[in-house]
């Protein structure tokens, strides 16, 4: 088997953002389900949280190729 350890590192580093994204949207969905009129307030917050978490995952992806 051939490969590089960078990919193992990328796999490990993707765990955190994956859990974070799941938690963000779980909270967003249950918030909107309880109070549908809160959607416009919650939506930007959820998207920004998603962007922050996703940035970390993409950081890992790019660094796996660069390093």
């Amino acid at each position: 088997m051939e490969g590089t350890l960078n990919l193992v590192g990328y796999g490990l580093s993707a765990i955190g953002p994956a859990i974070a994204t799941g938690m963000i949207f779980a909270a967003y969905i249950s918030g909107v389900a309880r109070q549908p009129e809160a959607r416009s307030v919650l939506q930007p917050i959820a998207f920004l949280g998603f962007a922050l978490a996703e940035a970390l995952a993409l950081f890992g992806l790019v660094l796996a190729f660069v390093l």
Partner: protein
Amino acid sequence: MSRRNSNNDNLSNSQNEENALWSIVGYLLSGLLIWGGIGWGFDRWLGTTYLVLVGMLLGAGASIYLVWLRFGRD
């Protein structure tokens, strides 16, 4: 048909969300790639090693700012 029309508001809302999620990922990826690529190019040119990281941080910051501009502010 009439049921659909009464649902139209919710429907377009969820379509907007789907659209927004895909474009957020696109923005983050291109921000990292463009500014990380510029940093990487400067690294090759000047013979340093840290500029690629600076570029990636700059790109990530800029694209999160862009996401906030597009989807965060009212």
